[in-house]
């Protein structure tokens, strides 16, 4: 295990895994309980347009992806109501728009985009230190906002209508939460890539949900599960020389299936015991 830490890129990858876990534990929990997994995926894919813009303008693609994903998050949140199309249609359009813009921008950019693949499928081993700082800042923003507005986030997630009647500015809270989703997309984009982001924003919470139904505990458990499993995935990918992002996702899915199976087995076992 110590050998694992003797390289700087491994230490950075380890830090990246921890920073990723904070974002996906906190935001992922609300993504799952609000049932907006597809919306989150739309924001993640829209961020690809920002990545392409970064190549075109010659800036760090992660930096240009941040405003892009925030605008797309707010766009989905407001446009679908204004132009009277259903939210899932709006997500579908934005999903494709982001990818199309990204491809056009990259085509217009001079030269070849060598690490483009890493934004699609992630490359936790090559996260630069500057990105680690950006991830840390975004994590801190996410955590502070969720702690301050926990009561409002819980209430609007459970019953938006009642919260509205009780004077909670539900539209503002919802849009703010979509911004947090955009933040977490940026935190995750380097490490796991656009296509695999969904796994990290859903599976840790889905695993944690097998063990607790308390929202605060669910957030904490999700963070811990995400941290342990991303690092385990990273370690396995190192030893077996596999793609890191994909290995992490497969570890998450395997653990989820095992937990779901055990829980099901336990509940039938307990029921049988009682009936005997």
């Amino acid at each position: 295990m110590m050998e694992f830490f003797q390289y700087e890129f491994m230490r950075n990858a380890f830090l990246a895994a921890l920073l990723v876990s904070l974002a996906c534990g906190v935001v992922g929990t609300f993504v799952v309980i609000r049932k907006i997994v597809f919306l989150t995926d739309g924001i993640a894919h829209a961020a690809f347009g920002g990545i392409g813009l970064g190549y075109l303008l010659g800036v760090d693609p992660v930096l240009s992806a941040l405003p892009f994903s925030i605008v797309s998050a707010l766009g989905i949140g407001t446009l679908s109501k204004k132009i009277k199309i259903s939210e899932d249609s709006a997500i579908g359009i934005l999903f494709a728009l982001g990818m199309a813009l990204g491809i056009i921008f990259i085509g217009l950019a001079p030269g070849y985009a060598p690490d483009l693949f890493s934004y699609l499928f992630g490359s936790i081993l090559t996260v630069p230190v500057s990105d680690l700082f950006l991830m840390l800042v975004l994590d801190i923003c996410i955590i502070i906002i969720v702690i301050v507005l926990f009561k409002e986030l819980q209430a609007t997630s459970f019953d938006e209508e009642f919260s509205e009647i009780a004077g909670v500015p539900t539209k503002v809270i919802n849009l703010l939460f979509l911004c947090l989703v955009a933040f977490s997309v940026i935190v995750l984009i380097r490490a796991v890539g656009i296509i695999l982001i969904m796994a990290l924003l859903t599976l840790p919470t889905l695993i944690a949900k097998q063990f607790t139904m308390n929202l605060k505990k669910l957030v904490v458990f999700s963070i811990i599960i995400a941290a342990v499993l991303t690092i385990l995935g990273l370690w396995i990918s190192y030893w077996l020389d596999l793609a890191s992002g994909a290995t992490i996702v497969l570890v998450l899915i395997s653990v989820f299936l095992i937990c779901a199976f055990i829980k099901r087995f336990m509940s039938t076992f307990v029921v049988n015991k009682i009936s005997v």
Partner: protein
Amino acid sequence: MKSKSTSIIELSNINFTYNHVPILENITLQVDQTDFLGIIGPNGGGKTTLLKIILGLLKPTSGKITVFGKDPVEGRLSIGYVPQVFRFHYDFPITVLDVVLMGRLREKRLGEHYSSEDRDIAQNALQQVEMHTFKEKHVNNLSGGQLQRVMIARALASEPKLLVLDEPLSSIDSRWQSSFYLLLQQLKKTMAILLVTHDIGALSMYVDQVACLNRRLYYHGPTKEGLQHLSNAYQCPIELIGHGIPHRILGDHA
């Protein structure tokens, strides 16, 4: 008619159209602080729309409405709202006490956490609906009737002047039915109650007054005369309201 000073909701000539289809036409209705009013009407008759207008969730196409003398968006803070329970997904990670604490939201600033006083009020509200032993339970452990009691407790925790219940009779379980009746009788001493239902049979034993709504307001007055009125005038499509069992509706008609 009671004096105008006690009226808490006033609707005058309210119209609501959706995609050019009239949902509500020329509704004029007054609810007083001492009222226990049941709004009945067939499904699709505009009951939910009327409720949403009173709660400030929808703006009427035309007409004037005040709630506690103010615009509904401000006035609704004095309303305790009990929604239909089927809307909720049961796997949401929230405890019964946390649901009831939502009733305290209106007293709180953005970002301000619930106080121990809020917890006391929430627990008292749970006691009123006989659900205090469930306070640490998660909503996924509750039956439909139990969840409804929790929703009533949540409304009571906001210490409302008006309690609004949307189709409460459809999810009531038989064990809770008589306590529910007694609870409403108790509550009507301290607050106005507005109950919306399509089930006229169950309604007649609860409320003091009825308003019959089917796009237009057909009758608003005491319950007994109201039911008689319905049977005589056929202004409300009784077969829709009563599921085709007029004898049950009309009670002492025969």
